[in-house]
């Protein structure tokens, strides 16, 4: 049994908290423990924050968050049409010399079990994040 929930949200800072709250309530429903719910909360926030911060679209344009919940895992997709970026330019942060930016994707990858990003320059980005239940 898989349930799919979808949210469509304007790309504004004030709504990222709403998505975070909704997704953490879902993760809680799905049976994740407190630590995993926190991980999911941060990861989805980072993904939404990237859309809002780096998106080149009108702030009224909406992005989509889709959650697919089954007995063994939650999949969260964050999909925007906000211009995309050249992923080959991505640089992993160097934490001996931390900079103000550049932590988002690094944190998402550390907190989620699987992360796939697909971005097309001039179009948009989608990020797929998976977390398994009961995984050690």
């Amino acid at each position, binding site marked *: 049994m898989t349930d799919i929930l979808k949210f469509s949200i304007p790309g504004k800072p004030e709504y990222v908290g709403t998505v975070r709250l909704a997704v953490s309530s879902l993760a809680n429903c799905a049976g994740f423990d407190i630590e995993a719910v926190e991980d999911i909360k941060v990861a989805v926030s980072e993904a939404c924050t990237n859309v809002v911060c780096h998106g080149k679209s009108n702030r009224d344009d909406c992005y989509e968050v889709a959650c697919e919940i089954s007995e063994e895992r939650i999949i969260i997709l964050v999909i925007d049409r906000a211009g995309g970026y050249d992923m080959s330019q991505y640089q992993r942060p160097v934490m001996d010399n931390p900079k*103000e930016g550049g932590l988002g994707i690094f944190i998402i990858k550390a907190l989620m079990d699987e992360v796939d990003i697909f971005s097309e320059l001039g179009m948009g980005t989608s990020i797929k994040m998976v977390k398994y239940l009961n995984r050690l």
Partner: protein
Amino acid sequence: MSLKIQSNFNDEGNQWEIKAIGDVDISTAPKLRDCLDAALQDKKANIVLHLEELNYIDSTGLGVIIGTMGKMKEYENQIMLVNPKENIKKLLNITSLDRILCPKI
């Protein structure tokens, strides 16, 4: 999401004692930045950031703290995080920021 900040200069210790209460995310991070900037504007000194009532922070908030750390280096002042909750400790650990910002953990 809301963030409350209590800012206090400790004359004895000659340092700022700043307490962040609530959540720091993309919508509240500017408030944290403004408070930290205002403190340093008022008096160049070390900052102790008390996190026992901070429930949530993500890269936007961590970015503000890193940025502040950078500005303070010039004057050889430091920013130090104390009493983070478990979820925040995890994030500081993942990013290795605990080694730089949390001498006491």
